[in-house]
């Protein structure tokens, strides 16, 4: 499978969802989307739910969906570089969760979500090795997943403190898209971390990136952190305040991403009041769909 006009047409037919909020199976106290919508109507139009097949769905996302809310499914448990991970049971479970949520696509960070077989305690997130060979394996996994589930799959550039390989992360995912025939999820915060780690401008390499294949964007807060032994890094901790580098990327991409369907603000673990200004700003940049439900 490679990128074709047929795939382009399928992407064009996907629903426009607008600005949304992320959610993850009860790891920490989270903003309940139903409550947020009730108290601040018109700020969120979709929820992106992240989970793994062991944990499944939770009550708050089902309440949102059962009330007619739009939802997308974010996987947290697949290593696209390892084809062995594409087992039938995982693909079937993932598809069934997405179906329950009414998700029009599957998405998630593309990297190493677990060591060993999928199991409790094996979870982590490492970036893919940024080489052509790795991109081919990742593309193959995505092509298999798209074929078996019947859903479009959008790989996301993951965060990391390091990257290995000779490709820029954007070139890696452009290659994956071309080879797998898939759209893309661009995480602006993760990209800003990558650019800063390499001493690059936040928008480096975006001019050669297929922006018209971006279907979803993530925007999240992060900030400077330092370890006890003095190592400094940007912590992708999803705090409410979005880093200026991330805003630069968002402002560059949104007007150019002609097939963009959803922008998720990953902020669910914050005080709702601290997130409102960013939601408003994102809604101005990426206006709501005509009907939110």
């Amino acid at each position: 499978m490679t990128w074709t006009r047929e795939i382009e047409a399928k992407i064009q037919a996907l629903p426009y969802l607008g600005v949304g909020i992320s959610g993850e199976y009860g790891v920490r106290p989270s903003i309940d989307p139903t409550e947020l919508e009730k108290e601040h109507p018109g700020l969120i139009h979709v929820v992106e739910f992240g989970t793994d097949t062991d944990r499944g769905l939770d009550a708050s996302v089902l309440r949102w969906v059962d009330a007619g809310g739009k939802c997308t499914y974010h996987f947290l448990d697949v290593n696209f570089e390892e084809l062995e991970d594409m087992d039938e049971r995982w693909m079937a479970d993932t598809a069934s969760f997405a179906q329950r949520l009414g998700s029009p696509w599957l998405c998630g960070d593309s990297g190493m979500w677990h060591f060993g077989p999928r199991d409790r305690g094996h979870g982590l997130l490492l970036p893919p090795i940024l080489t052509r060979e790795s991109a081919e394996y990742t593309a193959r996994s995505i092509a298999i997943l798209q074929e078996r589930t019947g859903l479009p799959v959008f790989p996301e550039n993951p965060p990391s403190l390091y990257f290995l390989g000779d490709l820029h992360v954007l070139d890696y995912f452009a290659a994956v898209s071309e080879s797998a025939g898939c759209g893309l999820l661009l995480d602006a915060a993760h990209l800003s971390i990558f650019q800063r780690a390499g001493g690059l401008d936040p928008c480096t390499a975006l001019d050669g990136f297929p922006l018209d294949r971006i279907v979803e964007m993530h925007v999240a807060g992060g900030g400077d952190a330092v370890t006890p032994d003095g190592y400094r890094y940007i912590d992708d901790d999803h705090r409410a305040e979005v880093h200026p580098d991330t805003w630069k990327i968002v402002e560059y991409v949104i007007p150019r991403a002609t097939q963009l369907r959803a922008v998720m603000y990953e902020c669910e673990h914050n005080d709702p009041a601290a997130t409102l200004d960013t939601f408003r700003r994102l809604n101005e940049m990426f206006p709501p769909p005509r009907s939110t439900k």
Partner: protein
Amino acid sequence: MSRDPLEEAVFVDRAAADPEAPVTPFVQLQRVVVRMLFDPAFVRQMYDDTAAALSGLEVDSSLVEQLLRNDRRLWNADRLRRTRSLKILLEEFKVSSTLALAECGRLSFLDAFFGSRHFHEAVQKRRYMALAYAAYLEEALSNGTLRSLHLQATLALESAMARSRRALREANRGRDAALAPVTPGQPGKRWVVQPGVASHFTPIGTIAVVQRIEKYLFEVAQVPALALCEDAPRPEPLPALDLDESSRQPFLLEPQPGGKVELSEVGAGYARVVAACVRPVGRDELGRTVAGAGTPSEEAAEMAESLAEAGVLRAVDVDRDGKVFLADGA
């Protein structure tokens, strides 16, 4: 049959249930990175003696050079990684881990698992960390680092349960070890366990030890700062174990979706039949196997039939090539 390179890779990776099967160099490197994230000693070895650290692995040297150009402090940026993982292991091996700590008195002994060959091999060969942890404790018992007989008994039980729940997971992923092909040329009807079902013989008193430790852990969990107290309660005295080999208590282990393993006491003959049916076994072989352990061979088939009716065993057909198929209705 010819395969393109990626199809071949799928084929190779599917075979990777065999931990010795080859994996791509970049995946090998990913696993090296995981080991670095967990083990500062391995990080030191990577920087100081890279060749020794990567011995036996096929990785791209330019990527390794790139890896080592990173600030080495980044590998330890997440200082709670080992603690979080240990917490999960302690939940699954709560009794044996508690008894290990009761004996050695050092959390660092359990934490050292992440620097052990058991952990490193599990990561590098895509194995289960929990089973590697069990092997780490078993080794400590076998080399005399730990000596507790209570630990020995409870570790054996918790390890059997850990294997049981993972056998079910693997079967759910299409890798049912019980249905793997058998030696060709011996077709016929056989019995084999349901995914993950197993039997386990344990010294009488083991369950009382488990209950004692569970009660102890519940009580000490009420005051997390107990670790600071010199007068913190101890789990001892522990219930006595009957170590007579001939009077072991037989249990049936049945894994459930979600990870629970149901434990039920069964007759010794039934437990032996279940043990014999871990792989497909026919009537004659079953009779011979259990007869050696004291169950009359003629009773074994009847027991197998009733275990199959109860859903503990499956009836399977084996063809001339040794392939195993579920029998109609199984």
